[in-house]
């Protein structure tokens, strides 16, 4: 594939916009970013971390005088979503790490999001308060109660403007429905229900009801010795409220229709690419495990991410993907080391741009990759503080797999496998992307002229 970004045509020229987080290399575990998600308008950007905290950034209104760049993202709200818990029965600690955040579409002045750790999903309401009542008869301004006998006249309390306060409050807590670790949540297009998936089961919830959830997929075998695969991700179809998909550690995707039966253990469609048996190795199954599945905005396609590639599937064709993009094929000859250092189990996510024409995913050495489905060109960029100048176009990076390394290329053996980009997000409408390194959040925008 030819690299894009070399100028000309409709290629996007990506520029650094902002970076959030600490500069120092000594990363506290709590600061490791575990999820990144834009809301439906793109005005808000949420991150979750290993310490159970959520930080929400808001895009500032476009400044008419600053036409050369879109609004910056500034901190809007931050709160502790989940705390560490202890399962006394099994003597196991329950991590507070936020596995996923999903926004609800906005219905009124407040914003709502779902955040989940391994066991509990919470619905958070984020609301603004910019006025407060003043002039009570029975209360002083500082809140102390007045002695009613000292009141000689009455007044009507009025609302007066105050500095904007953004408050986050937990409105629903959906607990005790998962024996195994939750890997996905997905809001249905009916905006009333959502699913949560763990390693072996998928549950359906109603957003208003916390004491009941319906199990819709259960792949737990009667005898755990017979366990051969686990659920790795699940998502509702963007338009059909009866359809959802789930991916497995064996590289398959099953599409289920909730109208068919209450328990969707029998799939409606099974997407699987046949494997060449002569290519099979010890690593085959591990690298075929799907770490993320995402429907296109149109609902016609879905994308899956396995260890080395991104695949686009047409929902009408089950026997093979329609497009396959190699993310870092040069790692195929390093699988032994990657198995030893556990990197082979890293779970990379992937995302679509607003028009479904470009897909993006992360890699190592703080590199991330984009594939243009129309031009078939791809680009590798780096999230690094060295590229800090706003409006300077990012230079494409190149990894040299073998042989003579050209100037500006980096050899496979020099890649830093501790610098992984697992989470990326694309603004739903604009060419603005959020890329999370271990503990920093980078925002890039396309160059506006």
């Amino acid at each position: 594939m030819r690299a894009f970004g070399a100028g000309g045509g409709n290629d996007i020229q990506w520029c650094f916009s902002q970076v959030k987080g600490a500069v120092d290399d000594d990363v506290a575990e709590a600061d490791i970013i575990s999820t990144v998600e834009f809301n439906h308008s793109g005005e808000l950007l949420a991150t979750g971390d290993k310490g159970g905290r959520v930080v929400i950034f808001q895009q500032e209104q476009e400044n008419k005088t600053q036409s050369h760049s879109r609004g910056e993202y500034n901190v809007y709200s931050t709160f502790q979503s989940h705390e560490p818990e202890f399962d006394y029965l099994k003597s196991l600690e329950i991590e507070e790490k936020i596995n996923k955040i999903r926004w609800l579409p906005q219905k009124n002045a407040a914003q709502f999001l779902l955040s989940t750790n391994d066991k509990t999903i919470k619905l958070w309401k984020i609301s603004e308060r910019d006025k407060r009542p003043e002039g009570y008869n029975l209360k002083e301004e500082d809140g102390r109660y007045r002695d009613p006998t000292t009141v000689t006249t009455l007044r009507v309390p009025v609302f007066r403007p105050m500095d904007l306060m953004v408050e986050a409050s937990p409105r629903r807590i959906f607990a005790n429905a998962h024996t195994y670790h939750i890997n996905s949540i997905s809001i249905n297009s009916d905006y009333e229900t959502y699913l949560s998936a763990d390693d072996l089961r998928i549950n359906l919830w109603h957003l208003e009801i916390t004491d009941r959830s319906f199990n819709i997929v259960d792949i737990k075998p009667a005898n755990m010795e017979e366990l051969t695969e686990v659920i790795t991700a699940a998502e509702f179809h963007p338009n059909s409220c009866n359809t959802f998909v789930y991916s497995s550690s064996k590289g398959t995707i099953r599409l289920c229709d909730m109208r068919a039966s209450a328990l969707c253990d029998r799939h409606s469609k099974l997407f699987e690419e046949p494997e060449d048996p002569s290519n099979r190795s010890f690593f085959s199954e591990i690298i075929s495990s799907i770490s993320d599945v995402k429907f296109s905005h149109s609902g016609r396609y879905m994308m899956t991410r396995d260890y080395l590639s991104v695949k686009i599937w047409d929902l009408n064709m089950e026997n093979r993907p329609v497009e396959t993009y190699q993310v870092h094929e040069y790692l195929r000859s390093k699988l032994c080391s990657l198995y030893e250092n556990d990197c082979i189990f890293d779970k990379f996510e992937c995302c679509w741009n607003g028009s479904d024409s470009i897909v993006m995913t992360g890699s190592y050495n703080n590199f991330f990759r984009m594939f243009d489905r129309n031009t078939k060109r791809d680009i590798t960029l780096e999230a690094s503080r060295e590229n800090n100048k706003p409006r300077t176009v990012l230079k494409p990076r190149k990894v040299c797999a073998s042989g003579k390394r050209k100037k500006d290329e980096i050899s496979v053996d020099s890649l830093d496998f501790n610098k992984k980009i697992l989470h990326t997000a694309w603004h739903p409408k604009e060419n603005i992307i959020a890329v999370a390194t271990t503990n920093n959040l980078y925002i890039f925008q396309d160059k506006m002229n």
Partner: protein
Amino acid sequence: MAAPLGTGTRTEEPGQEKQDAQEKEIAHPERAEEAKLKAKYPNLGQKPGGSDFLMKRLQKGQKYFDSGDYNMAKAKMKNKQLPSAGPDKNLVTGDHIPTPQDLPQRKSSLVTSKLAG
């Protein structure tokens, strides 16, 4: 399900063998990597995607000392040797008696995220 590795029986020149090995490595980098792994860990299980590996995944999470597990393990092991803290220490409950060295440091206190700083 393990793939057979290079079982040619005809005699070859040493140079030819090396060239063949290189070709094999280029054509099947995964197999070459698999050979490396098997050379390092000869006791590696035959079914990598099977039970053990998946069970470890399901078990993810910090396991603390459990007096119930401890007593059950002691009862089971009356007639066996005490197992040492092997690489699978997080794998199964009850068969292994945790020692203080197995337990991790407790987490630090909760502060505001540096992203909001």
